[in-house]
C-alpha cells in the first residue's frame, strides 16, 4: 500500500524506468506516460457506439416520471395518488412517505429525502414518482396526481435568509441549527487587521464588494438511472442501479442506507457518462426512486431527466457575495487578505459545508499573503440546491482576489504579472493556513503566458490603438490560481484506501485493469491504460479497462476534487509494478539473467544488454503465468492527514496543487456593452502530463467554460429579474427564468475564444510519475483574467458577474459621467 508520503521500491519520479530508451518515450509507437495517445473510448464515441445510461433497455422495463412542486415553500397538506393509480398501465406511485430516510453527500449534513416529506422547499422539488408501462402513461399519471399545498414564507435571497428562519414558517431546512444558516466558517491566520492598518499608512489597501452569480453545469447527457432487481441466490434478488453518476461508491452507500438494504445486496454500474462537471457528484432523486419502484414492481424501471429537470437538479456554482480587503506594502508584498462571504445555498446542504471552507481555504497560494482571514456563511434559500461545479467553491473568491491584485498593482505602479511573481509562495512551503504546497510552476506559467500574449508590448496599448475599429476597445488581463489534486480527507471518515485498482494479466498477452474510478469524459480510463502501457510495456490494444461497477471493481471514491489521476494513478502504478516484478523474474529465470536486466516496452520484453534478444509480451506473460500461477495484483492509495492543526484545517488540504496562469484578450463593444473574449493564453502546471492530449483538452474545456461564466451564464430566478409585475411576483420569485439551453446560454463555437494552451510540467513527489490535477484548476483564473482585460480595454472596474451588456454599458456611462459603477447593491 502506498501513500502520499512514502515512496515505492523503484523510483517513479519523474518517470518510470521501464521503457527501453527514455528518448523514445514521446515518439510514435510508444504509449506510456507522456505520449500523445488517443483516448481509449474516443473512436467508440466518435462512431456513436458508446452506450450511455439511457441506451440500456430491458424486457418489461417501466418508465418513471416525477411529480414536482409548483411552490417554492409550502406544507404538503395532501397527495392524492388514487387518480394516477387508476390509469391503466400505471404500476406504482410513491411519495416521500415511502422513502423517508434522510441522506446527503456529507455525513454531517444529511438533510434531504428522495421525495419531499411534509413540505416542499423549491419550485421543482420532486413530490411523488410513478412507474408506468411507457412515457405517455407515466406523464398522464403525473398529471392526474393531485397535491394540495399550504404556502409558507418563501426565502429567495441571502438578505431574507439572514432575517428569517427562526419561525417554522420561514425556516427553509430544519437541519439549520440557527436561522437559515447551513454552515459558517470563520478562520484567521496572523495579524490581519494590524497588517491592513500598516498598509493603509504605507502601502496600498483595496476594499470592495464582489458578486459572482450562480451558474450550472449543463452537461449534454441528462441524468438517467435504471433500477433492476434480479440475480443473487435468494428470491429477493439483488438491486442493481445503472446511473449516469460520477460517484458510484457514494451512490452505493446511500442506496443501501435509504432503501434499508445490506450494502452487499446493492450493485451500482456507471456506464460512460456524457458530461458531469460536478453536477452528478452526489446521489439524486431518480436513483432512489427507480430502485424503490423496481423493488416494488419487480420490473426494471428507468428515469431520464428532461433538460428542465437537469436544471432543477442543479447543484451548481453558489452565488457568492464577497467583501474583500487586500493589502500590500509599498514594495508590493502582500501583507493581508480578508474576506466576508455569503453563499446562497438553495434548499439543501449538498456539499455546502465543504463549499464554505473551499471559499476560503484554497486562496492562500500560489500567490501567498502574510496574513489571512475569511468568514464564510452558507444560507438555505427556497431554490434548487447549489453544490460543486468545476472548481468547487474557490472560483468565486479567486475572481475577487485576482481582480484585487490587478488593482493593487495599478495603485503601486507595478506590472500585475510582476506583482504575482513577487508574491509567489515558493515550492515545498507551508502556506499561511497550514497547507503544504509541494511543486508549483506558477513562475513558468506566468512566463509562458506573458511571452505568448506579447504582454509587455501590448498591454495597456490595445484600447487606444483600436480607434480605427471605431466603437470597439481591446485589452489584456492576467490572473493566476491554484487547485487541489484531491483532498487528503475522505468525505466520510475512514482508514481505508481512497482508491483501489486490481490488475489481471494472462497468457493472451492482455492486461485488464479493474478500477472503481469514474470516467466522466475526462479520460481516467485512458490514464489507466497509459499506466498499464508504461509499467507492463504492452500496446494500448492489449489493455482492457473495467471501471466503475461496484460488483466488479475495487472502491474509488469518485470523480470529484480533481482527485482521480493522482489517487487512482498511484493505485494502478502499484498494482502494475507488482506484476511487472513477476514478469521480470519469470523471464530472467528463462534467460538466466538478473530481473533488473529484463525491460518491458513496445509490446515486447527485452534484455537490457542485448536488444536483439526479445519476446512478445504475451510470451513473457506465459512464462510468468507458468512460474507464479494465475496473475493478479492490487494496488491502493491512501493519504496521511495533512493540513493545518485546527478544526477544518484538513479541508482543502491536498497531496499536491496545480498552478495556472491566464492572459485574456477581450474586445468590448462600447455601444452595446457586449464583450467578446477574443483570445486566451493559458499555461497550466499539472506536474507530469501523463497524456498531454488529455491535459490540453482539460485546459481548453475549463477555459471556455470559465470565459462563458463571465459574460453569458447566469442561473436567473424570477426574484432577480427586471420588471416583474407585482401580481405575478409571488408565484415567479422562486422560478428559474429559463430552464432550457435556449435561455440559459452556454457558448456556441462562435462565442468561444481562441485558446492557446501550454502544458507546464513541474512534477510533484506526491503524484504518480509526478502528476497533479488538470481538470478544474485551469478554469479559475480565466474569469479574473477576462475581467481584468475588460479594465485594460475600457478603464472600468466591474465587480459583479455576469458582465452582461446592460451592466457593462451602465459602467461605461458612469465612467463618462465621472463615477465608477456601484458594487452589488445588497452589499452596501
Amino acid at each position, binding site marked *: 500500500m502506498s501513500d502520499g508520503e512514502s515512496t515505492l521500491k523503484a523510483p517513479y519520479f519523474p518517470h518510470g524506468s521501464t521503457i527501453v530508451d527514455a528518448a523514445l518515450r514521446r515518439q510514435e509507437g510508444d504509449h506510456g506516460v507522456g505520449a500523445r495517445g488517443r483516448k481509449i473510448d474516443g473512436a467508440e464515441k466518435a462512431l456513436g457506439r458508446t452506450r450511455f445510461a439511457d441506451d440500456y433497455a430491458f424486457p418489461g422495463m417501466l418508465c418513471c416520471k416525477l411529480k*414536482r412542486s409548483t411552490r417554492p415553500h409550502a406544507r404538503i397538506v395532501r397527495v392524492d395518488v388514487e387518480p394516477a393509480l387508476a390509469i391503466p398501465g400505471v404500476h406504482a406511485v410513491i411519495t416521500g412517505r415511502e422513502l423517508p430516510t434522510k441522506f446527503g453527500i456529507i455525513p454531517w449534513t444529511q438533510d434531504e429525502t428522495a421525495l419531499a416529506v411534509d413540505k416542499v422547499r423549491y419550485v421543482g422539488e420532486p413530490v411523488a414518482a410513478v412507474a408506468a408501462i411507457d412515457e405517455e402513461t407515466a*406523464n398522464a399519471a403525473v398529471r392526474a396526481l393531485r397535491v394540495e399545498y399550504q404556502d409558507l414564507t418563501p426565502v429567495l435571497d441571502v438578505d431574507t435568509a439572514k432575517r428569517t428562519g427562526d419561525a417554522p414558517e420561514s425556516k427553509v431546512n430544519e437541519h439549520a441549527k440557527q436561522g437559515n444558516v447551513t454552515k459558517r466558517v470563520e478562520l484567521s491566520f496572523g495579524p490581519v487587521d494590524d497588517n491592513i492598518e500598516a498598509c493603509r499608512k504605507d502601502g496600498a489597501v483595496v476594499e470592495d464588494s464582489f458578486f459572482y452569480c450562480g451558474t450550472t453545469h449543463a452537461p449534454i447527457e441528462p441524468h438517467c438511472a435504471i433500477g433492476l432487481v434480479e440475480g443473487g441466490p435468494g428470491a429477493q434478488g439483488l438491486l442493481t442501479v445503472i446511473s449516469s453518476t460520477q460517484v458510484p461508491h457514494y451512490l452505493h452507500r446511500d442506496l443501501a442506507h435509504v432503501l434499508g438494504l445490506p450494502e452487499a445486496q446493492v450493485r451500482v454500474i456507471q456506464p460512460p457518462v456524457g458530461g458531469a462537471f460536478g453536477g452528478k457528484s452526489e446521489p439524486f432523486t431518480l436513483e432512489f426512486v427507480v430502485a424503490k419502484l423496481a423493488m416494488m414492481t419487480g420490473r426494471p424501471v428507468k428515469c431520464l431527466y428532461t433538460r428542465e429537470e437537469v436544471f432543477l437538479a442543479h447543484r451548481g456554482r453558489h452565488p457568492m457575495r464577497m467583501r474583500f480587503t487586500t493589502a500590500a506594502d509599498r514594495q508590493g508584498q502582500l501583507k493581508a487578505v480578508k474576506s466576508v462571504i455569503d453563499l446562497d445555498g438553495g434548499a439543501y446542504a449538498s456539499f455546502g459545508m465543504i463549499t464554505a471552507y473551499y471559499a476560503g481555504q484554497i486562496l492562500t497560494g500560489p500567490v501567498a499573503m502574510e496574513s489571512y482571514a475569511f468568514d464564510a456563511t452558507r444560507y438555505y434559500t427556497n431554490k434548487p440546491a447549489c453544490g460543486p461545479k468545476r472548481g468547487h467553491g474557490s472560483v468565486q473568491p479567486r475572481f475577487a482576489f485576482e481582480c484585487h491584485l490587478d488593482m493593487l498593482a495599478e495603485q503601486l505602479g507595478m506590472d500585475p504579472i510582476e506583482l504575482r511573481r513577487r508574491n509567489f509562495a515558493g515550492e515545498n512551503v507551508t502556506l499561511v493556513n497550514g497547507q503544504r504546497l509541494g511543486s508549483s510552476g506558477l513562475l513558468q506559467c506566468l512566463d509562458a503566458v506573458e511571452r505568448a500574449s506579447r504582454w509587455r508590448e501590448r498591454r495597456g496599448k490595445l484600447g487606444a490603438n483600436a480607434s480605427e475599429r471605431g466603437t470597439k476597445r481591446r485589452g489584456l488581463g492576467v490572473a493566476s490560481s491554484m487547485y487541489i489534486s484531491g483532498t487528503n480527507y475522505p468525505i466520510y471518515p475512514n482508514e481505508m484506501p481512497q482508491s483501489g485498482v486490481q490488475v489481471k494479466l494472462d497468457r493472451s498477452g492482455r492486461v485488464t485493469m479493474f478500477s472503481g474510478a469514474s470516467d466522466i469524459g475526462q479520460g481516467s480510463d485512458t490514464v489507466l491504460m497509459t499506466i498499464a502501457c508504461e509499467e507492463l510495456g504492452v500496446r494500448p490494444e492489449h489493455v482492457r479497462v473495467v471501471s466503475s461497477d461496484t460488483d466488479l471493481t475495487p472502491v474509488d471514491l469518485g470523480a470529484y476534487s480533481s482527485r482521480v489521476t493522482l489517487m487512482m494513478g498511484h493505485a494502478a502504478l502499484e498494482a502494475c509494478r507488482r506484476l511487472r516484478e513477476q514478469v521480470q523474474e519469470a523471464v530472467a529465470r528463462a534467460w538466466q539473467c538478473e530481473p533488473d536486466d529484463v525491460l518491458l516496452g513496445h509490446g515486447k520484453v527485452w534484455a537490457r544488454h542485448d536488444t536483439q534478444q526479445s519476446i512478445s509480451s504475451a510470451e513473457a506473460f506465459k512464462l510468468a503465468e507458468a512460474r507464479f500461477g494465475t496473475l493478479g495484483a492490487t494496488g491502493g492509495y491512501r493519504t496521511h492527514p495533512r493540513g493545518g492543526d485546527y478544526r477544518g484545517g484538513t479541508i482543502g488540504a491536498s497531496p499536491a496543487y496545480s498552478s495556472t496562469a491566464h492572459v485574456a484578450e477581450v474586445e468590448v463593444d462600447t455601444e452595446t456593452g457586449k464583450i467578446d473574449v477574443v483570445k486566451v493564453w493559458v499555461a497550466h502546471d499539472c506536474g507530469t502530463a501523463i497524456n498531454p492530449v488529455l491535459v490540453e483538452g482539460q485546459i481548453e474545456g475549463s477555459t471556455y467554460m470559465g470565459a462563458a461564466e463571465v459574460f453569458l451564464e447566469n442561473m436567473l430566478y424570477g426574484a432577480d429579474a427586471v*420588471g416583474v409585475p407585482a401580481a405575478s411576483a409571488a*408565484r415567479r420569485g422562486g*422560478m428559474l427564468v429559463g430552464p432550457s439551453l*435556449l435561455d440559459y446560454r452556454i457558448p*456556441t463555437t462562435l*462565442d468561444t475564444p481562441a485558446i492557446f494552451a501550454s502544458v507546464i510540467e513541474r512534477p510533484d513527489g506526491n503524484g504518480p510519475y509526478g502528476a497533479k490535477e488538470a481538470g478544474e484548476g485551469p478554469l479559475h483564473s480565466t474569469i479574473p483574467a477576462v475581467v481584468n482585460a475588460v479594465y485594460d480595454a475600457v478603464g472600468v472596474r466591474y465587480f459583479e458577474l455576469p458582465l452582461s451588456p446592460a451592466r457593462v454599458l451602465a459602467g461605461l456611462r458612469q465612467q463618462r459621467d465621472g463615477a465608477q459603477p456601484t458594487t452589488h447593491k445588497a452589499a452596501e
Partner: protein
Amino acid sequence: MLRLDPFKVERPTTVDEAVALLAAHGAKARVLAGGTDLLPNLKHGLHQPELVVSIGGVAGLRGVKDAGEVLEIGALTTLAELERHPLLAQFAPGLARAAAQVAGPQLRRMGTIGGNLCLDTRCLYYNQSAFWREALGYCLKKDGSVCHVVADGKKCVAAASNDTATMLMALGAEVELRARDGTRRVPLDAFYLPDGAKNTVVDEGELLVCVRVPKGSPARREGYAKLRHRNSIDFPLLSVAVALDVEGVAPGTVTGGLLVVSALQARPLRVSLDAVRGRALDDGAIEELGRLAHGRCHPMTNIADDPAWRRDMVPVLVRRAVADALHA
C-alpha cells in the same frame, strides 16, 4: 425527453390536397414545414392539434423564381437556401443576410421562409414547459387569464421574433395565401396583427404558399441588424431592418424606403423615412432616424433581458442596419 402528445399526420403532395385538409379540420389542424418552431411548441403543450398537415412533400413550393418585377420565393424554401441564393444576392441581399442570422446552421437547413414568417410569437412566460407554466399559473396567451408582462394587461404582447419578417416588411414584400376557394395576396404590412395571441391574418384553412419580394431599383440599399447574446442560435432581443432608396453621390440623398423594428411586441413596428426624405444620408440623418425609432420603441419584459438596455440599443441598431445597407 419531452414527449409529443398523440396526433394524426397527413402528408399531402399538392397544395389543393393540403388546403382541403386544412379546411376540413379548421382550428384542429396545424401546418408542419421544417418543424423547428412547431415541434418544440408541441412538446411544451402550447398547441393540441388533432391533425398535423406535413407539407414537406408538396410539389412546387420550394425555390426562388425571377418573376419580372418580383422574386417569388416558395414557402418551403429553406433559410439555408436563401442565405446563398444567387437571385437574392442580386435582388434582395438584405433578405439573404437576415435569413443567415436565424438560429444556427442545422436549424436553417430545416427551417423554411414560410415557417419563419408564420413563427408563433414568443414570450418568456409562454415558451416554457407545461410544468413551468403550471407553476406560474399560466398566462393570457395560453390556458390563463393573467399577463405577466403588463400588469392588468388584457391583450397579449408576445413578441414577433422572426428575422426575415422584419426585412421583408421593410422591402414591401407580400405573401400569397391559398385556401380551397381561392388565393389572396397580402402585403406583409397588413399580414401582421398587433395581437400576441395570434399575430397573422392567416385564416383557418389557409396556407402561405409564396412570398413576393419587389426587386426594387438599383438605388435600393438593404440592411439588417440583430441584437443577441450569442452569435448563433438566439432569437433576436431586438431587430432592425432597413430598405433605403439612395440616389446621387455618397452619402447620397434618401428618396424612399422604410425602417422596421421588431422583437418588441406582436407586430413589427414601421418607422417612416419621411423625416429624412430628400435629405443627404449623412450622420445627422442617421442619428435622426435612430431618435425617431427610439421614441417609438418600448421593449417589454416579454423577453428576459433588461428592457431599458434594449431600448437604448434601438438607435445603435438603426445605425448598424444603415451601415449594413451602405457597406455590405
